[in-house]
């Protein structure tokens, strides 16, 4: 490594390539390629083995009927995929995904944005509120789920005791197939609205005060300032928040698994829960692999489509926040 560097390169002080593509240099000497590659190699090996390979393995296994014992031999082509699209539980997963995405966009997003706007003003205790609202994000989904399974439990849970304290009847939070998704969404909101709020606050900080001030001086009322100045300038941030909500919803597992196990009667099941159920409990590895691949394709198609049509320039930004939330 050292040798190639002190060799031909040392004579050209301007060597380290400019990262920008505009200033393309003549093709780099082979030694530099090897040096650079040596830096990338360890990460690449780990990434290929544990991120890329599993997807290929899932794609391969999805073509078999296999119970996980011995090598897979029972090749069945695309039957597992066809089965999924006739499978009521899988179709229910897709319906639940749509419900979560719709509620996230219609309820959680406006709440997060509204609070970000409120906290963006100079009010007392602003830093404190910010820290408080964001705190649930650092609590693991599993522990959140355990806590809320106690809070939402039918008799002794805090939620129903609160209702009865106000003279209302108990609510079947997690036990009614018709309303379980709303309860689930409530918990998702508890955990993640602060995350989206933080993103919006960061976006709002990027809007120059002069613009909103100029609009007010020109006679725009606060609503119009928001509608015609703040909101358009916040659009990239909103798109990223939506993107993260959807990608998060596609892989939702921990919360559902612990809160409801997907029930009652699969009413709150998600793709990942179905995959886990078939892969690890019923050991129908082939079918579970097909569901994995479908989840992957869903995420990929959504990401590419969204990037093409909606996000365009700001995808890089979204990518760096993928550590993300939902």
């Amino acid at each position, binding site marked *: 490594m*050292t040798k190639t560097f*002190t060799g031909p390169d040392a004579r050209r002080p301007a*060597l*380290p390539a400019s*990262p920008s593509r505009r200033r393309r240099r003549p093709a*780099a000497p082979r030694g530099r*390629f090897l*040096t*650079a590659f040596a*830096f*990338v190699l*360890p990460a*690449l090996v*780990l*990434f290929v*083995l*544990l*991120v890329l*390979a599993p997807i290929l393995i*899932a794609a391969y*296994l999805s073509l078999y009927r296999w119970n996980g014992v011995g090598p897979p031999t029972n090749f069945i082509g695309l039957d597992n995929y066809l089965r999924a699209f006739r499978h009521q539980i899988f179709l229910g997963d897709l319906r639940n995904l749509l419900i979560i995405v719709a509620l996230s966009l219609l309820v959680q997003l406006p709440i997060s944005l509204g609070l970000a706007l*409120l906290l963006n*003003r100079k*009010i007392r205790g602003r830093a404190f509120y910010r820290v408080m*609202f*964001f705190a649930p994000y650092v*609590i*693991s989904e*599993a*522990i959140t789920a*355990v*806590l809320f*399974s*106690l*809070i939402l439990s039918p008799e*002794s849970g*805090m939620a129903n005791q609160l209702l009865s304290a106000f003279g209302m009847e108990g609510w079947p939070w997690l036990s009614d197939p018709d309303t379980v998704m709303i309860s689930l969404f409530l918990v998702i909101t508890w955990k993640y609205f602060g995350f989206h709020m933080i*993103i919006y606050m960061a976006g709002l900080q990027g809007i120059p005060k002069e613009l909103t001030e100029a609009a007010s001086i020109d006679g725009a009322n606060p609503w119009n300032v928001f509608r015609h100045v703040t909101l358009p300038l916040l659009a990239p941030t909103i798109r*990223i928040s939506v993107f993260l909500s959807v990608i998060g919803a596609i*892989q939702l*597992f*921990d919360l559902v698994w*612990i809160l409801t196990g997907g029930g009652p009667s699969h009413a709150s099941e998600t*793709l*990942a829960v179905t995959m*886990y159920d078939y892969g*690890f409990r019923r050991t129908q590895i082939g079918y579970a*692999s097909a569901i*994995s*691949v479908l989840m*992957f394709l869903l*995420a990929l198609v959504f*990401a590419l489509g969204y990037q093409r049509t909606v996000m365009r320039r*700001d995808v890089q*930004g979204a*990518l*760096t926040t*993928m*550590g*993300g939330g939902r």
Partner: protein
Amino acid sequence: MIRRLRTVPTHVLIWIAGIFVVLPLAYAVLGGFKDTGQLSVNPFGLPAPWVPENYTDILAAGSFYRQLWNSVVIAVLTTLLTVALSALAAFAFARFAFRGRELLFTLFTVGLLFPFAVAILPLFILLRNYGLLDNPLGVILPQAAYGLPLTIVILRGFFREIPREVEEAAIIDGCSPFGFFWRVLLPMARPALATVSVLAIVASWNNFFLPLVVFNDPGLWTLPLGVQQFQGEYSSDTAKILAYVVISLIPALAFYAVAERQLISGLTAGATKG
């Protein structure tokens, strides 16, 4: 005075959200000091009398400490591995021109689109073949691999911003590429390294799905897994489970108190670039 009054609705709205956030946590903290009978008769008031046994029993038994230790070890090793490998790769991506660079970098960024849950089943089969089930490495290595894309993207952005003159000076002084990376670039990148480390720690700390499928042995459980299993074990003793929830939240919230700035700057770094 009128200015004061105008912020009243704002504060009301914020307080409603605040109660929504705090109430479950306050219920858990106080509930942990009650016994199950108190919890159903007096769910919201202060405990009367205070029953510290739920907490002290958990702190006296060994399993909480073991799970805490497991979580710490796995988070630290995951973070070291992620950040070390990512920094090397990001260095090459940021400061070398070589054929295939953009292609390789794109390959890593595509990894950002892989939901972790997608790979869990094939990962399980892979780990089984490598004999890494019931082995901390079975969680550490995949977590590190999944952490690479985000960490590389953030670090590459940071490394690119360090002026060319710094590198030229280092080279004239006889630095090798690795010497420049190690002795100049990394020390300069300390804030960025702190940010990505905090993100990696939080991701590892909160991971539930992977430990769930990899660890059968209770001696290896991490805190999220331990809390979930504890609930299964003491399903009737709500107060005790609340106490366990609270105790296991303390390390995470303490870490948040210390690293809040890095965490938030890491999460919002990209979002505002738009």
